[in-house]
């Protein structure tokens, strides 16, 4: 069973998305990337992000991740900020530590693609 299924699948994403997006918008290190006119569209993208980070069904390849983030010139600090907000969200939702570790592992596995290294 994947960690996505263990924490409750799409319902877990729904529970996490508002908390996560709120943290991201309030985080000066990265808020500029997400603060667009169309909050609904960004909200939907946060869901795509969480689904992927939780190891849920998604159709993104490493190459897609590279393409999606290439133009943003992301740094280590940006990545860490996203990871911290992700962990903060999961902690708030009282997700067991072992699942959090697993999710962080998934995020780290796409780090090089996201940072275009």
């Amino acid at each position, binding site marked *: 069973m994947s960690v996505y299924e263990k924490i409750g699948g799409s319902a877990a994403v729904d529970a996490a998305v*508002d908390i996560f*997006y709120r943290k991201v*918008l309030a985080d000066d290190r990265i808020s500029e990337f997400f603060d667009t*006119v169309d909050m609904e569209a960004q909200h939907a993208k946060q869901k795509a992000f969480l689904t992927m980070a939780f190891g849920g069904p998604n159709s993104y390849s490493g190459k897609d991740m590279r393409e999606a983030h290439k133009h943003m010139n992301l740094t280590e600090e940006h990545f860490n900020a996203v990871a911290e907000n992700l962990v903060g969200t999961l902690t708030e939702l009282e997700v067991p530590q072992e699942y959090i570790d697993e999710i962080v592992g998934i995020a780290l596995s796409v780090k090089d693609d996201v940072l275009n290294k």
Partner: protein
Amino acid sequence: MTAIVHYQSTAVPLDHGETVLDALLRSGFDIPHGCKAGACHACMLQSESELPATAQAGLKENQKSLGYFLACQCKPAEAITIAGAAEATKRSSAEVISIQSLSKSVVRLQLKADFKYIAGQYINLWKDPLTCRSYSLASIPTEDNILELHIKIFEHGVFGQWIENDLRPGDKVDISGPMGECFYSGDKSSPLLMLAMGTGLAPIYGILQDALVKGHVGKINIVAAARDANDLYYLDLLSNMAKFNPQLNTHFVAQCSDGRENVTEADVYSYVKAEFSSTKGYRVYLCGGENFVKKMKRQAFLAGANMPDIYADVFLAFGE
């Protein structure tokens, strides 16, 4: 590469960045349209070609599957062939009942029409067969069939001037719709926060009446804002409603209060932030111009309201 629009056996090449609607209008075709912003759906056409996703954003699934798209939101990368106008959204005739000034810059237009809608939705009002604008309904559906619209008059605004100067009681006008997803629904005990800028009060007033009629028991806070206190309207009406409905609280906010009693002189964003520091568990209704809705949506979300509980209508101005 230039994309080409094929329409009624004419091939119209698109200028760089041009929409299908602008290209067809430039070439002399009569295409009904209104907002040029994807809100009124008056420019809907039909095509069997591949369409960019943005051209179908906001349409219903069955409309999408029929190849309907919004010409004002369509910038195709390749050639497209247009089959024709989407089966015209049905227009119905309405009779003008009254036109009355509500404030320095806002008039109330009452129409009589047998028309189904949910309070808070908006309609298209047609000045001629090709030109419309969207206006929100301030009324709730009742047996007298009276529709109420609040119209802000701009000095050079085509519709505002037409309504204020040319329309007379007894005249017949066409309307179509309704549209929009910003209306009262959900449980009756959650706190509601209703924020209106300018004529954004029209749908908010409709939604408020609907909530009260449906027996909403949770707290309701309504904030009516304007730049200038003289643009505010319905102060007495709303204050009276609050007297008879203890769950209702009214707030009137203007940047310049002009000494008017009951009006708080404040920046509406700071005011709302201070009064409603936590919006957790709230249902939030937001209506007004694009900037207002965008800023307030962000603010309400950061203060704790969940995204699916924030309902908004943006009054995009023509051509923006």
